[in-house]
């Protein structure tokens, strides 16, 4: 295990994993659960000084993205 992997990097990878899980499910309940966790990870990234706009493959579709996801953290 790489002890020097940052928490930000781990959370960024988590966004990608959640986006993959979202795409592979058509169950609205499961999608809601994934979107809720996605919102929590976004909040944590912003609190930790995130400065990147993730690519579309690591995002959820527009209607499911958290309201906090407005890109204002990108400087």
């Amino acid at each position, binding site marked *: 295990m790489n002890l020097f992997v940052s928490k930000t990097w781990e959370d960024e*990878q988590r966004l*990608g994993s959640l*986006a993959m899980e979202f795409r592979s499910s058509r169950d609205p309940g499961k999608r809601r659960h994934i979107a809720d966790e996605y919102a929590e990870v976004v909040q944590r990234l912003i609190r930790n000084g995130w400065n*990147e706009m993730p690519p*579309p493959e690591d995002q959820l579709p527009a209607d499911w993205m958290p309201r906090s996801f407005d890109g204002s953290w990108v400087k």
Partner: protein
Amino acid sequence: MAQPLARCKVIKVLFFRGDRGPFGKGVYDALRSGLADPRQDPTRLDCLLWAGHTGVSFDLGKTIYGFNPDGGRLRISEVINYLESGNSLPGVVIDDTGVFQAAAARTLEVLEFDIIVPPLTFDEFEQLVNVECKGSRFRYDFPNTNGDCNCATWIERLGLPLVTGRMSELVLVADIAAKKSRQFGACTP
């Protein structure tokens, strides 16, 4: 007496990560605005410069072919939202040399490595790509949906090896074992 070996030929793989800073935010804003107002839609080039792209070349990088979604009449913002929703689109192979030139012009690091093969393997793979250019048999998707591949995995689907085979290299591929499953192709779980 053994026949002398034919000279190796080079298939070059090129890729860049994409500009995830303020430029990327601008493209994201345009995508979201574009869903409501077509005039706000970003260009395909801007989307690729933000998202990153992978391509393959048979002439040492002079011409670079890339696999892309064919959205038909859909706008770029609609294509991206459709893919993010877990859908796939017909794939199309395009001469994307300009995309990589634009990436370099933006000082995005364009990485590359060479796959060195015998002439027969080179010719077979080049022929596969030529056929793909006339009409791809693959559907484009974002990872883990019912499509076949994206720009990076399209190269694998055509059979070009990408990793050297060293276990240390495979282990270093971020999250490769953490993501316990990955779907390629239409099927029911």
